[in-house]
């Protein structure tokens, strides 16, 4: 059997929504991750959606599953003296403690960084919270959408006429967990080399802030705020070969006029082969198609008489391109477009992803026995493939599944 990269590392985690994906990353890479859960389970255990037929069952929350694979579960009541004593003993048996509780909650129960570090100086203690351990908002109430808003990414997403959009998938929590995984590993390597442990402090607000793309630097240099621009991308007129298009059974996106891959004439070749090029081979469209790319458009905008000649032609070109793709399924448009080296993307639905040829032929999906009844279900694979020490995903634990065994081994 292959030794995994984090073999021999014990992580004891006191996490719910914010930090649990960090524990999952470490567990899939081979750490022994023991999740300490309150009686009945935390918020994530009790979150929808559930495995069909098991609504409300804490072992069947899909929200819990996706962030808690490969772990063990121990139920301890930290509101009781016995629970706190066992939790402390368990925490001190670990190389890493991972937690995402409100600031001060664990410290008040003898499980804070200062207490545990004093008892075990090599301990890495990672705290993942909405706003971090210090600062005027350290005690603010947090949930994912709060991190997305305060971290500056919602202001960039959505139609100007709508409220700003959050990004699906608890992305502030996920970002915080991914940053925490990196910090934890750097601290762990340092502890293994020197014996010195430390506190890793992660704020979800900071964790997702890099995702503002260029907004931060645009303010820094130019004192302008980037804002949400919606489907039109802030352009007054749709540009042929770009943007989101409706097709037979869904949507695709085109970036054909971007510098990579084939250009508009290559798309017109494809349309012609299927008898759908219309009058695009005739002037004045022929010249327009031959020239149209981002650089030429920028130039065009600075010469009004040229712009007046070409801009009115764009809607007709858009119509023909839309009509061409409207007859195809999203997968046809994506795969055939890409085979022709055209920058076409599919707007994948979850079903498209489950059936995605690349993911299927690479054998990415894994099979796990689901927690309540043990029937096999397919499950998304790991983010990376390590040639010597692969990430291995095993089923998320049932609530308290390992309580007896773990506590017996501690005694």
């Amino acid at each position: 059997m292959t030794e995994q990269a984090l073999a021999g590392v014990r992580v004891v985690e006191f996490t719910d929504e914010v930090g649990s994906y960090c524990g999952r990353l470490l567990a899939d890479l081979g750490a022994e991750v023991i999740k300490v859960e309150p009686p009945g389970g935390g918020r994530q255990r009790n979150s929808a959606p559930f495995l069909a037929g098991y609504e409300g069952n804490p072992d069947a929350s899909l929200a819990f599953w996706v962030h808690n694979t490969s772990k063990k579960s121990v139920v301890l009541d930290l509101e009781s003296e016995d629970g706190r004593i066992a939790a402390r003993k368990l925490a001190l048996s670990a190389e890493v403690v991972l937690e995402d509780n409100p600031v001060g909650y664990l410290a008040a129960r003898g499980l804070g960084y200062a207490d545990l570090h004093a008892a075990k100086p090599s301990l890495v203690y990672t705290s993942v919270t909405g706003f971090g351990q210090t600062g005027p908002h350290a005690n603010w109430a947090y949930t994912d959408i709060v991190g997305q808003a305060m971290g500056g990414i919602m202001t960039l997403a959505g139609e100007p006429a709508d409220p700003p959009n959050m990004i699906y998938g608890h992305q502030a929590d996920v970002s915080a967990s991914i940053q925490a995984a990196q910090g934890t590993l750097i601290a762990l390597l340092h502890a293994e080399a020197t014996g010195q442990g430390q506190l890793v402090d992660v704020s979800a607000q900071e964790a997702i802030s890099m995702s503002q793309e260029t907004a931060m630097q645009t303010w820094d240099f130019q004192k302008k705020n980037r804002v949400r621009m919606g489907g039109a991308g802030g352009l007054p007129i749709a540009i042929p070969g770009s943007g989101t298009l409706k097709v037979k059974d869904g949507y695709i996106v085109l970036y054909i006029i971007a510098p990579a891959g084939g250009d508009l004439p290559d798309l017109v070749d494809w349309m012609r082969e299927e008898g759908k090029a219309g009058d695009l081979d005739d002037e004045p469209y022929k010249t327009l198609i031959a020239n149209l790319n981002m650089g030429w458009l920028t130039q065009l905008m600075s010469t009004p008489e040229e712009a007046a000649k070409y801009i009115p032609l764009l809607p007709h070109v858009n119509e023909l391109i839309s009509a061409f793709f409207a007859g195809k399924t999203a997968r046809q448009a994506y795969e055939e477009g890409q085979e022709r080296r055209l920058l076409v993307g599919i707007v994948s639905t979850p079903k498209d992803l489950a059936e995605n040829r690349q993911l299927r032929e690479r054998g990415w999906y894994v099979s796990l026995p689901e927690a309540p009844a043990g029937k096999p279900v397919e499950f998304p694979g790991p983010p990376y493939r390590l040639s010597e020490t692969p990430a291995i995903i095993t089923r998320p634990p049932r609530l308290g599944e390992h309580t007896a065994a773990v506590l017996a081994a501690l005694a």
Partner: protein
Amino acid sequence: MAKRPLEGLRVADFSWFGAGPIAGNTFSTFGAEVIRVESETKVDSLRRVHPFAMNPDGTFKGGYNVSGYFNNFNAGKLSIQLNLNTEKGQEIAYRLIEKCDFFLTNFTPRVIDKWNLHYHQIAKVNPRIIAAYAPMQGMEGPHRDYLGFGAVLTPVTGISEMSGFPHRPPFGVGTNYPDYVINPGHTVTAMLAALRYRNRTGKGQCIELPQLESVVNTLGTAVVEQLANGTNPSRTGNRNPNAAPHGAFRCADDASSVGSPDRWVVIACRDDAEWQRAAAALGHPEAATDPRFATFAARKQNEDELEALINSWTRPIKAEEACATLQAAGVPAGVVQNAQDLLEKDEHIRSRNYYQYVEHPEAGREAHDGPAFHLSETPGYIAGPAPLMGEHTMDVCERIIGLSMDEIADLLADGVLI
């Protein structure tokens, strides 16, 4: 300055755009020596796009060295210019890799083919190398050569389908979102795990991070709902199946918010108690007992009405005030902040010194995203500005690769160091 935890490690950073360079940036922040390999024959597009630094007269600075986009992802790195389309350039690349602990790239497999930088090739010169490849779809498979970048990855990975309001087409999230945290963060996680294995066994290895797999791994429950329950979920705007209200609510306009005067507060109530406190904090305690909104099930059933009602409460209030009032009552709430808020108004993020400023020789004083995790004993920091294009070509050739001045002169004359 204290010794940083990754000092003594060296990264050969053969990456470009966002996802690869940000991974290298993290190594640089925590003390590794990171060498960005670049070439005028294939310039990183981020060097050539906005936002550019400005001159005092209000015009934009020009050239390869003044983009805030590039500079933010390449702080404290060294830059060597090397033309990998030449055989000699590839030979120099191997000699550099020989002196490094990590190799990092996010070029497509086609380019890796052309430059002869596959793992089996570089492991021959350095068996201890930890080599990370982060192509869009993977190094193998039927879609291996598909074209794309962050903006294409967002729809292809399902983020576009699952984000935004259901009455709108799936036009994405306004940025190349997966490039900035998910993909570089996963890459660094795998590289550090591989380093631990190498510390224990002396063995290097190859890491493949197909960006498609890396992102779908984080796509919430959507794909699992399809796989386990056979449903095909889609976007639901700012709503959440476990909370109501859960969304962004419009507040009073603020003309001082430059170009972005509409202001919003997000509010999330995960149980009846949070909702009762929210309604009271916003001055309408009676709404909490209104049968339309008194229970979670009722709020879900009447969510349109609930949202319209809350909008009517928040519309006259300043967003910062609404947020502070709700937070004082223990309700999860936040201002939808823009960059001006984050850099100039947010006292909290400033008190934690998240943004760090460095002096860049051409761009001037510039803000950087600081480390997104704070290590109490061995903190990272932005060690210096991003390199000018090719700024360290001589230094890297001489000090790290060990070339003589004569050899360097020949390489310059042969167009290898461009």
